[in-house]
């Protein structure tokens, strides 16, 4: 599979989306929570997070959502992300190598749009899934 896909006809059910490898540091999280107006000690302060029963400061779910969106828009540069859902299955620690990945599960033409359905996930090197979700991307068609 190539690193990007531009047209609906160029991708099939079962095809994998090019993975996005990331490793959000504490500094990255501090920057994100500032711009996303999510300031809370649970995201940036290990001690505060432990008092809340967490193992340490965690990566916000909204940041994980942002990484999944980035993987999709980088892989489908001509596409439009229509929907993104994410279940937060486990808390995501800072300074951990993470991989966003995805696979195409369905293709559909509806209301004049060419839509790709995908399963997406965020996991660590051991395959532990922190976030699991789905996405819908509209792509241009060569026939249009």
């Amino acid at each position, binding site marked *: 599979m190539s690193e990007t896909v531009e047209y609906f006809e160029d991708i099939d059910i079962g095809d994998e989306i090019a993975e996005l490898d*990331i490793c959000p540091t504490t500094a*990255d999280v501090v*920057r*994100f929570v500032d*711009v*996303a*107006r*999510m300031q809370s000690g649970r995201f940036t302060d290990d001690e505060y997070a432990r008092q809340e029963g967490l193992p340490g400061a965690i990566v916000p*779910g*909204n*940041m994980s*959502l*942002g*990484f999944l*969106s*980035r993987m999709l*828009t*980088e892989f489908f*540069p001509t596409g*439009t*992300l*229509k*929907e*993104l*859902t*994410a*279940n*937060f299955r486990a808390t995501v620690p800072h300074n951990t190598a993470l991989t966003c990945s995805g696979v195409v599960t369905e293709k559909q033409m509806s209301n004049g749009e060419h839509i790709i359905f995908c399963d997406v996930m965020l996991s660590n090197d051991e395959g532990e899934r922190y976030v699991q*979700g789905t996405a819908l991307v509209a792509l241009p068609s060569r026939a249009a």
Partner: protein
Amino acid sequence: MLEYDTSLLGKEFDRYSYSVSKEDIVEFAQSIGETNPLYTDEAYAKTTSYGGLIAPPTFCVVFRSYARLPDLKLNYGKRGFDGGKECTFLAPIRPGDTITGVDRIAQVYEKTGRSGNMIFIVRESELTNQRGEKVAVVRQSLIRRD
């Protein structure tokens, strides 16, 4: 067996507005490492079909309500955590936009899992721009359990 105040379902409980600057969009894009210049480079963005800079899709999460959920009078569920999000992206968000959010409790339901009963409260935020176009709907699942 779940019991709660059903009269609050679907009722608006918060309304809030934010203006969006180019800097807000660029900083958000950079904070998640976006590489697409559509989100960061005005000159490039003008050459695209969008005709100018737009925000990355999940920028819609920055329009935060600080209102607490209304008291649903749940009969259990002392502890709460974020179970997930569903975002529907309907129109691009651009610099200069004023985005108004309206929050409602869209759904309350109970699930039984390996660890017992859990209550799911779905908080729906509908985001509209200054032209009255709906730009996104964000549904957040809050899980409550004892």
